[in-house]
């Protein structure tokens, strides 16, 4: 009986393992191939993008995907640092857009979330519904409004046009409210009786209690904005101000260091995720359960 159970468990695990491996395939390939020499990449992947000419020459024109490089080398990373100063610039552009958005949205959203979660005022629920609905809209819907406003405020073609709408986006409010709803009113009542004002309550009671919520929000925002493509594409017309996400998409065909570039771009996200997986998952689940 126990043996059969163990075999069952093993079979199930290996099935799931195969699916998991399939999911990880793009990430693993990017990593191992970032250690290949540019020459090896050219030989293996040179046929990509050569459409119809290849068909006539025979069947042997497929790519040759390799899990393990012939020779492990940091050549791509070296090239990247030495020959491609644009890459580092774009990396900093990404950081320069993402960090202000995260700091700003977390601060603004924490204040608003407290009002929505723990204070009573007229029009609270309808207002929250409006917040919620904008959160669900694709970027293209708010594209024109954002554009009109950026134009009016003279922000067009500057980083502010990307950062400010990010700071005031509804997601942070929604998520921190979810975390704050779980705090019992008794804490607030007790503090009030002790004579604490709302600001004191917020700073000394609420914020420390939603620490994990703040962590989760920061991670989710980082993932979201590190990945943004549309906003910078439209609001920043100077190619030297654009973040990595836009820059990388233009690269296909240059095999010398493309995997190293991808790897450096995704690794902050992947490492942050592996480091803080529990916060991430808690954040997703909590913003889902009582949505």
């Amino acid at each position, binding site marked *: 009986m126990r043996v059969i159970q163990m075999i069952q468990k093993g079979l199930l695990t290996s099935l799931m393992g195969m699916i998991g491996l399939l999911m990880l395939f793009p990430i693993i390939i990017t990593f191992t191939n970032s250690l290949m020499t540019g020459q090896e990449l050219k030989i293996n992947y040179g046929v990509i993008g050569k459409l119809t000419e*290849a068909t006539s020459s025979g069947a042997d024109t497929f790519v040759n995907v390799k899990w393990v490089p012939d020779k492990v080398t940091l050549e791509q990373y070296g090239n990247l640092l030495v020959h491609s100063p644009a890459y580092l610039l774009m990396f900093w552009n990404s950081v320069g857009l993402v960090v202000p958005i995260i700091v700003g949205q977390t601060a*603004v959203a924490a204040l608003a979330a407290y009002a929505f979660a723990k*204070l009573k005022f007229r029009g609270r629920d309808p207002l929250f519904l409006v917040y919620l609905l904008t959160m669900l809209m694709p970027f293209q819907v708010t594209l024109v409004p954002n554009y009109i406003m950026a134009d009016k405020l003279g922000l067009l073609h500057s980083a502010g046009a990307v950062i400010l709408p990010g700071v005031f986006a509804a997601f942070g409010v929604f998520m921190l409210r979810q975390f704050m709803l779980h705090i019992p009113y008794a804490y607030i009542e007790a503090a009030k009786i002790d004579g604490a004002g709302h600001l004191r309550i917020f700073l000394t009671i609420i914020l420390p209690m939603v620490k994990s919520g703040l962590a989760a929000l920061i991670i989710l925002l980082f993932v979201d904005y*590190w*990945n943004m493509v549309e906003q910078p594409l439209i609001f920043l017309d100077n190619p030297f101000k654009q973040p990595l996400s836009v820059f990388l998409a233009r690269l296909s065909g240059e095999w010398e260091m493309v995997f190293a570039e991808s790897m450096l771009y995704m690794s902050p996200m992947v490492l942050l995720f592996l480091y803080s997986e529990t916060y991430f998952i808690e954040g997703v689940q909590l913003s889902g359960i009582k949505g």
Partner: protein
Amino acid sequence: MKKWFFLCAPLGRVRWMRRDAAAAWLFLMPSAGGFAVFYLIPFVMGVMVSFMSGVSGGRFVGFANYQELLASHSFRKAASNTFYFSMVSVPLILALSLGLALLLNRNIYLRNWLRTSFVLPLVVPVASVIIIWQMIFDWNGILNYTLSRFGIERVDWMKTDAARHVVLVVYIWKNVGYNVILFLAGLQQIPKDYYETAQIEGAGRFRQFFGITLVYLTTTTFFVVVMSIINSFKVFRETYLLAGDYPHDSIYILQHYMNNMFVSLDIQKLTAAATLMVCGIMAIVLGLFGLERRYRQFME
């Protein structure tokens, strides 16, 4: 401030409530102000523009912009593609993620590692794996290589109707982990003794699945459906990075249309399309939540 509070505290609860409201607006001010400036006011302006003949100094033209929009061939193509994609992708990802969550929830080795591997694609930036999708779906790519091994003709994945499947694969790869997390949370909330009772009463596996698991997952499922629809609109980013402004007809979705209207400065059509899209999404979301509420009442 403390002193003042001390003075008015004995005046009773009504005063407290009013103070609450004043404090609430103070806390809300930064967020609500920015939200109004960057989302609400301009959005209302956008809706107004959609009924005008020009951005500034135009006159009121009623639904003329909408008529023109609905008559436009590329808008209809984009709208039907968007609709088609959601209709196919949402049920598919729902079934897949529920299946994976159920298997993960069973007695299995390496559970946390497996969960990590399903969720990891969610945090990987789109632009960094575009190169991999190209390697797979290229004419000379991995997929065609595999097919040819089995003696199947090559497919030009990106430039025929098959592009739909490419987008579907990319969407599922990216989003299945998100739904798995949500379903896992839902599954863990079902009390274990329900299953024990059912077992004692002789209910089989299938009865247990349909009678307990699915019933208690309804709320989660509704939420997953809403999020899957929303996320299915976000697949634009992948399509855009893979195929550019004008991809193959079969994957030309509403966002392409709106982007292109924006580039050609056809603000009337763009705002009209945006307004219609907002109405559509609101109808879907509010409809689904209404349905969920009625279902819950029916259950009680």
